């Protein structure tokens, strides 16, 4: 199933958008285009949002979720990994 379907849960987000602790801005459209046209499935998608200005996190395909790698700025997505 992982070959044709991946589910990304957005922590804290309400219905489609918002939520007091949500990073609710992310680009899944580019991800689906890459998947359909370049056969490149998304392993993570970067999210940002007004709830935490300056913060970014990877959204992960279920059942993986974002883990801090243990070093580096914890406001930056690059210091997290999906596992």
């Amino acid at each position, binding site marked *: 199933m992982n070959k044709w379907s991946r589910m990304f849960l957005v922590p804290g987000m309400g219905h489609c958008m918002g939520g007091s602790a949500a990073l609710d801005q992310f680009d899944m459209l580019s991800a689906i285009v890459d998947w359909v046209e370049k056969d490149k499935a998304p392993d993570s998608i970067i999210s940002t*949002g007004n709830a935490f200005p300056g913060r970014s996190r990877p959204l992960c395909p279920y059942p993986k979720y974002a883990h801090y790698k243990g070093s580096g700025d914890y406001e930056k997505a690059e210091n997290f990994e999906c596992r």
Partner: protein
Amino acid sequence: MLKNLSIIALFVGIVILLPYAQAESAETCSKLVDLHIPGMDVEITGAKSIPSSTLPKSPFGGGFSGTIPPHCRVDGVMEPRIGVNDISYGIGFAITLPADWNGRLLFQGGGGLNGTVQDPLGINASGDKPALTRGFAVVSTDSGHKGKGSFDGDFLADQEATLNFLYQANGKIAEQRK
């Protein structure tokens, strides 16, 4: 199921929209109002050339960048009919065809129980660049009924309207794209 149909709609749409990709002139666009599709019960209610304009305020975190590109917007209804309790039904839809089309089609979803044709901009999960600003053609439908809000379930009294809402509308609209 809904997702699968949307993906099928994507492929079908890419192929059959091609002839209208060049619909950039206002004249070509407005002529689409006279479009009749043999064998399909579709009424085009409006076809209008829309110049470049600003995007609405983003409901998401960081706002939108860019502008709505010049495009042709076509509004219509499929299979209009009188249903249960003498209420008018039909699958209302709108499609935006950008002058500078990138060859892709996005079939936009509705909110709640739907019942309204939302502007086909493709804002959901598109980051700060709605699909239309990227050159996608975007389709939006009301799923086959008019609601007094996105949680108005009165249409469930009508079997065809219910089936349209559940899944049929997506396939029908995708096919209609030729």
